[in-house]
């Protein structure tokens, strides 16, 4: 308990806030690594997930690669990359991106897969283009799951970005590493608390953003899907292909 109080004392001591090794500076670095990797991961993972979900193609490959990527030991991977590239932000970002892409992919494609086939079929039948179906039907309806992927990827990246401290970078992980190296456990604990607090805050902000982005009626829409998939008719015609195919 004493240790915990010491850690809190450290956190609330204004002297530890500023400066190049202060909490603020390292917090900003941590956020910078997180933001950069998430931006790259979103650009890769979401479109790919949407493509797989919309067409229904390549799903197995994506699942295989995703689970392989999830199984990679992060620390080992980053040292491996550093062996080849040398120190720098690059290897860290690569590793965090590899970590973040699978949940983003999974959120996007499972989100699209969860959209009722009949809804998509009807959208196509009344004359929506494939893009319109994706943007105006599939994505809004998949938004809760897409956002779920974004949130879980972000949490993982925030937690894992602490390894930046091991490879000569900064971020909140520095407190942990310095604390362990110096056997200054209050410092290590303070670092851990900071990472957890950051993760909770960011997740809360994302939850708020989700409320704004997910259209009204989607929650209803989703409950309706389960209603309809219980009805006797769906999928009678098998999977709807993106365009009418002519064998």
């Amino acid at each position, binding site marked *: 308990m004493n240790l915990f109080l010491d850690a809190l004392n450290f956190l609330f001591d204004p002297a530890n806030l500023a400066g190049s090794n202060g909490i603020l500076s390292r917090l900003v670095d941590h956020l910078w690594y997180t933001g950069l990797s998430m931006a790259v991961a979103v650009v890769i993972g979401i479109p790919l997930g949407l493509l797989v979900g919309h067409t229904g193609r390549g799903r197995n490959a994506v699942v295989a690669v995703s689970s392989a990527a999830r199984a990679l030991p992060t620390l080992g991977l980053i040292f491996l990359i550093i062996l080849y590239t040398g120190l720098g932000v690059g290897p860290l970002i690569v590793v965090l991106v590899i970590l973040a892409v699978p949940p983003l992919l999974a959120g996007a494609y499972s989100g699209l897969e969860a959209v009722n086939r009949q809804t998509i079929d009807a*959208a196509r039948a009344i004359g929506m283009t494939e893009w319109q179906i994706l943007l105006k039907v599939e994505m809004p309806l998949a938004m809760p799951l897409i956002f779920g992927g974004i949130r879980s990827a972000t949490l993982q990246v925030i937690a894992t970005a602490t390894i930046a401290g091991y490879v000569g970078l900064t971020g909140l992980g520095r407190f942990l590493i310095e604390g362990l190296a110096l056997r200054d456990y209050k410092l290590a604990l303070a670092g851990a608390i900071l990472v957890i607090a950051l993760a909770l805050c960011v997740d809360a902000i994302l939850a708020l953003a989700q409320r704004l982005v997910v259209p009204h009626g989607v929650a209803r829409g989703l409950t309706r899907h389960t209603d309809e998939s219980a009805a006797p008719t769906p999928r009678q015609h098998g999977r709807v292909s993106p365009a009418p195919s002519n064998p």
Partner: protein
Amino acid sequence: MIEFHSVTKRFPDGTLAVEDFSLVLPSRKTTVFVGSSGCGKTTLLRMINRMIDPTSGSIAIDGVDIASGSAVALRRSIGYVMQNSGLLPHRRVIDNVATVPLLKGVKKADAHAQAMELLDTVGLDRVLAYRYPSQLSGGQQQRVGVARGLAVNPNILLMDEPFGAVDPIVRDDLQQELLRLQHDLDKTVVFVTHDIDEAFLLGDQVVILEKGAQIAQVGTPKEILANPASDFVASFIGADRGKRRLAVDSSVARSGDDVVLVDGAGYVAGVIEAPGGVLPGAGAGVNTDSLARSVSNKTDQAGDA
């Protein structure tokens, strides 16, 4: 006018859903495709708006091959109503109805005003406009589906078992509403059902189909009832079981001016007015054959009971 020219559809898995189908569907009339499940009705219907492309053969609308333009433009010019309404669950009723006009670039205010009028047209209260589809009953959702199908003021309306999933009383309502709409709007309607009574009620031209969309008989309901072309047709419309052939039941004591009719199996089919104990149009001998035809449309349920 919609023309099928030797249209065949074989799905990639080898299923021959439609085989060498040729037919003309006249303009401003309702053509009903009727047949058992799996006989190819939906496939026929969806080839009209290119949701399915024929393997061979061609389809023309007013003489123009539908394959010549873009599929999206074609679909936007044709109303489509399906069994489970197919409404977009994340959009309010009014936005659902206005979907295609908005895609076509109609101003939002105009599209919404028109959508409101369409709700009137299909007999829906305007307060429902701001609900989400899941907040409506099945029958109301189907009405919204019809309103959406009418939103682009199409010449052609495709309806795939639109009333198949609603209860019989609501279905009756919707059928009557469709008859009224069709009377007012004069669209070329292509209607798919497996219910022969619905087909006879709604169809100007009824097409009875067997597996592979083989035409068993085409004609007006009267023609088909009067002269079933084959045993299959007779069986399908219930004529073989005597369902369509009604007789005066003399065992029931008369009260007032009504005469009780029974079908071939002896089930009570309904009553017919016989003022002063005399059947209309009948001379001394009551001609139950001609009676059977004139009242047959209304008498089916009794046989199923």
